[in-house]
C-alpha cells in the first residue's frame, strides 16, 4: 500500500515514549535548568483552527516527553503582527522564556523571530518558513521544524511532472507567500506555464478564475489557496464541471478544512511532509494518541507542533538551555524520532526531508489524506546556499 521509506526508524511507540520520558527526567536529574517555552499562536479569529492544532500537537508532545523538564506558556496572537510582537515581548521580558515557537503565519513569524533571536533566545518555527529567514537572513538561533515555505510547492511541481502535466494553469493569492508558491512550483515543474494569475488575498469567489480555466488550453491546475480560500475554490471548481486534474500543497486539503470541503476534494493529489497514515511507528503512535486526547485526526499543523516539542525535548535532554551554544548544538543534532521518518537540519537549520504526494480519500464518514508516494526525496530548500551559518 504505502511505500515505506527504507531508512525510516523502526522504533515502537512504547520505546520512543519511554526514551523521551527517560531523557526528560534525566535532564532534570542532571541539574539542567527547566526549559521555558513561549508558544504564540493564532487562537482567535479566522486562522484559529491552525493555531489550535499547533498548540494541541505541541502540548501533546510535551506531555509525552514528560512534563518535568519543559514548561509552556501559551499566548494568542489574534493573527495580528503587532499583537504577536506584544505577546512576544511579554514572554521574553516578563515570563523570561528560553525558547519561542508557535506562530502559524509567515508575516507574524517575520515580526517576532528576528527580535527573539536578536535577544539571544531561540525561535523554533513549527510552521511558517519564509525565505527571508532561510537564506541571507538565517540566524544561528532560528530553527524551522516544518519546512521552508517553498518546499510543498516544489513537491507539487514534481508531482505535476509525475502526473504528466504539460501545460499548467497556476494561481495563488497576491501576497508574498503566494508569490513564493508560484515560484516554488515553477522551480520544479518541467512543463510550460499556460496561465499565471494572482487572486486577491481572502478572495472567496473564484468564478472569474474558473471561467478562465475553462477557456484555457491547460491540461492541469496548480493552486495555492490556504484556509477558507481553498474551501471556496475547491467547492466552486467541483461544481464547474471542469475535469482538469488539480495539484497543490496540503494547505487546502488538510484535516483542519477537509470536513468543510467535503467530496469536492476527494481524489485530489496534494503535497506535504507528512500524512496521517504514514507508515512509521512514531507517526502511528502520534495519530493514535492525538485521537485519544482530542477526538480528531491530527492535521499537519498538529504533527509539526508535535515534532517541535519532541525536538525541544531531545535538546533539553542533552544540554542546559542556559548554555546557548551547547543547546544549539543539541538542537542541530535533531536527535529525535520524527513522525515523518527521516529528519535532519541543513546548514540554515531548516529541514532536509522527503515530501509526500497525498491523496484525499473518504474513510468511513471522514475525509482524510493517504500517503501515495514520495514526491521529492531529501529536499533541501534553495535558500540554504545563501545562508552563511557554519556548524
Amino acid at each position, binding site marked *: 500500500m504505502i511505500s515505506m521509506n527504507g531508512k525510516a526508524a523502526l522504533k515502537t511507540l512504547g520505546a520512543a515514549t519511554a526514551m523521551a520520558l527517560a531523557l526528560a527526567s534525566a535532564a532534570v536529574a542532571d541539574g539542567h535548568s527547566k526549559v521555558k517555552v513561549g508558544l504564540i499562536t493564532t487562537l482567535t479569529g479566522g486562522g484559529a483552527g491552525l493555531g489550535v492544532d499547533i498548540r494541541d500537537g505541541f502540548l501533546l508532545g510535551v506531555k509525552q516527553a514528560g512534563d518535568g523538564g519543559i514548561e509552556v506558556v501559551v499566548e494568542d496572537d489574534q493573527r495580528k503582527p503587532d499583537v504577536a510582537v506584544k505577546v512576544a515581548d511579554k514572554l521574553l521580558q516578563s515570563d523570561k522564556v528560553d525558547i519561542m515557537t508557535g506562530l502559524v503565519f509567515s508575516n507574524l513569524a517575520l515580526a517576532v523571530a528576528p527580535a527573539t533571536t536578536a535577544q539571544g533566545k531561540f525561535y523554533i518555527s513549527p510552521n511558517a518558513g519564509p525565505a527571508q529567514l532561510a537564506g541571507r537572513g538565517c540566524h544561528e538561533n532560528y530553527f524551522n521544524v516544518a519546512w521552508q515555505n517553498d518546499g510543498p510547492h516544489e513537491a507539487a511541481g514534481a508531482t505535476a511532472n509525475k502526473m504528466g502535466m504539460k501545460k499548467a494553469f497556476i494561481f495563488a493569492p497576491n501576497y508574498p507567500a503566494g508569490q513564493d508558491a508560484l515560484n516554488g512550483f515553477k522551480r520544479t515543474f518541467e512543463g510550460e506555464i499556460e496561465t*499565471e494569475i494572482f487572486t486577491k488575498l481572502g478572495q472567496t469567489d473564484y468564478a472569474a478564475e474558473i471561467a478562465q480555466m475553462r477557456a484555457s488550453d491547460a491540461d492541469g491546475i496548480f493552486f495555492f489557496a490556504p484556509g*477558507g480560500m481553498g474551501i471556496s475554490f475547491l467547492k466552486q471548481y467541483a*461544481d464547474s464541471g471542469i475535469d482538469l486534474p488539480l495539484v497543490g500543497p496540503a494547505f487546502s486539503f488538510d484535516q483542519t478544512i477537509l470536513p468543510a470541503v467535503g467530496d469536492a476534494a476527494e481524489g485530489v493529489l496534494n503535497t506535504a511532509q507528512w500524512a496521517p497514515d504514514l507508515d512509521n511507528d512514531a507517526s502511528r503512535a502520534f495519530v493514535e494518541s492525538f485521537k485519544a486526547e482530542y477526538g480528531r485526526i491530527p492535521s499537519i499543523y498538529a504533527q509539526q507542533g508535535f515534532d517541535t516539542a519532541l525536538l525541544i525535548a531531545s535538546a533539553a535532554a542533552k544540554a542546559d538551555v542556559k548554555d546557548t551554544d551547547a543547546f544549539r548544538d543539541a538542537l542541530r543534532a535533531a536527535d529525535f524520532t520524527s513522525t515523518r521518518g527521516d529528519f535532519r537540519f541543513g546548514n540554515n537549520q531548516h529541514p532536509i526531508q522527503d515530501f509526500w504526494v497525498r491523496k484525499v480519500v473518504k474513510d468511513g464518514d471522514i475525509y482524510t489524506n493517504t500517503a501515495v508516494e514520495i514526491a521529492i526525496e531529501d529536499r533541501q530548500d534553495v535558500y540554504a546556499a545563501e545562508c552563511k551559518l557554519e556548524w
Partner: protein
Amino acid sequence: MDLLLLIEQILNGLQFGVMLFLMAAGLTLIFGVMGLINLAHGSLFMIGAFAAAAVAGWTGSFLLALIASLAAAAMVGALVEITVIRRLYDREHLDQVLATFALILIFSEGTRWIFGSFPLFLDIPAWLKGTISLPGGIQYSLYRLTIIGIGLVVAVGLFLLISKTRVGMRIRAGENDREMIGALGVDISALYTLVFALGAALAGLSGALVGAIQSVEVGMGEPVLILAFVVIVIGGIGSIKGALAGAILVGLTDTLGRTLLPVIFGAFMEPSAATTVGSALASMLIYILMAGVLIFRPTGLFGRA
C-alpha cells in the same frame, strides 16, 4: 479574450453583484427607515451561513437549511433590535458604529465558542449541482444561475413590498417622516423590529447561499459588509433601486477588473509584472469607482440630496 468568456465573466459579475445586493438591500433599508448604520450586518450574514450549515448537517436538506438561515438571522436580528438596536435610533452615528462594532466582537467569538474554530461544511444540493448550457454554448453553473434568479426575485419582491403593501406604505412613510408615522397610530417599534428582522433575514439568506460555494467560517461577513458599504455609497443610501444598481456595478467592476486588467497591462508590460500590477490595481478598483461616483454625485447614483 473571446466573446463567450467575456459573457461568462459578465454573468459572474452579475452573480457577485446579486449576492452583494442581498446584503446591501437590508443595510440600506435599515438606514432608510431607522437612520441606523449597522456594522453587525456582516454577523447576520455569518449567522445565516452557520445556521444553514448546521441544519443541512442534521437534516441533509438544503431547502430546510435556507429556511433555517432566514429564520435564524431574522430571530437574532429581532432579538438584537429589541435588546440593543432600538436604544440607538436616537443616538449619534458614532454610538451606532461602536455599539454595532461591539456586536461584531460578541457574535464572531460567540459563534466560534459554539461551533469551534474549524470551518463548517455546507454543500450545493445535488439537484443544483453541475452546469447547464446557455445559448451560444456557454457552460454555466446552475447554482450560480439560481443565485442570480433568487436575487432578482428578492429585488422584485422588495419593490412590490414597498410600493404595493400596507407594510411598505408604512416603511415609506417612516422614511419620509418618522414623527408622522407615529402620529398615524402605527406601532412604530413593531415596524422597526420588523424592518430590522427583514434586513437580517436577507443577510442570513445571502450568507447561506454563498456558504454553499464558499467557506463557512467565523469572520466571513466583514469583507462582504465593507463591499456592501461601497455598494450603498455608490447607489445612494436608503434606495433599494440604488442598492441594486450599485451592487451590480460593483460586481461587474470587480469581476471584469480582475480578469481584464492583467490582460490590458500585459499589452505593454512583461507578463509577470503585468500580473502583479494588474492584480494590485484590480484590488483597488471598486474603491476607485466609489471615489469617482463621489466626485460627481456625493449622494450616490439614486440618493436624495
